[in-house]
């Protein structure tokens, strides 16, 4: 049995999630906002694997869910970056505060 308590991993994941949230709120560049989202998804994966190891190591549902989350992160990165490229072509910049067409 591992000597590290479960709460250490949960604390690490909470800190990583908070850092990612800070990045999502404060960044102006859309690609940097996506970087913050990736940090938050990583924190969620860390939580899932920690719970799997400490609570139900005999059942593989958490690792399967982590694989699905990684798939969704890859899909989100591909589509998100395609949207960023399209925005760059139409607005000549990728700052998120420029994308206020719906407000006008």
């Amino acid at each position: 049995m591992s000597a590290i308590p479960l709460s250490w991993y949960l604390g690490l994941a909470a800190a990583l999630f908070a850092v990612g949230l800070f990045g999502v709120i404060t960044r102006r560049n859309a690609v940097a906002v996506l970087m913050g989202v990736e940090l938050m998804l990583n924190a969620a994966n860390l939580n899932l694997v920690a719970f799997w190891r400490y609570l139900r190591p005999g059942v593989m549902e958490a690792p399967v869910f982590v694989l699905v989350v990684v798939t969704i992160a890859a899909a989100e990165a591909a589509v998100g970056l395609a949207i960023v490229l399209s925005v760059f072509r139409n607005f000549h910049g990728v700052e998120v505060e420029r994308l206020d067409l719906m407000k006008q």
Partner: protein
Amino acid sequence: MSANLQYALFAVVAASVLVPALLVVTSRNLVRAGFWLLPVFLGVAAAFVLLGADFLAAVQVLIYAGAITVLLIFVLMLTRGAGNPQVRQSNRMIPWALLLSGAVGVLTAFVLGREFWPVTTETPVPGFTRALGEGLLTTWLFSFELASVLLLAAMVGAIVIARREEP
């Protein structure tokens, strides 16, 4: 492994995740911020190894450290002004963002960190990758197929969205 060695390894992993993560969200040069993602993803992979999920660590290195980082840096270089440290990269929400993310982090750590989880002393079955593969192709076959359809849709969607329209 002895307990002290595990504590030391966890400290190294936590430092190699949190310090670069802070640099990712604060660095003025976005290309550097993109490269600081690498130690974060590798640190999370090391945490997966510490937790006994070796196949997930390999997936993490391949997809996050390999594919997603490269894709992010690629788009940073395709769009203008990312490597220019003169351009301000943060908006004026920093105090509110500090307050909100600090509150979320402290509350999450406080609620999840209480020792009420029914922690088992069970160790995982040997052969993590084999058990995961069997699970994927039997019990969780539907989510596996759903993920593959999602990847196909994302691929087609990315091509359609990023394509230059003919005039």
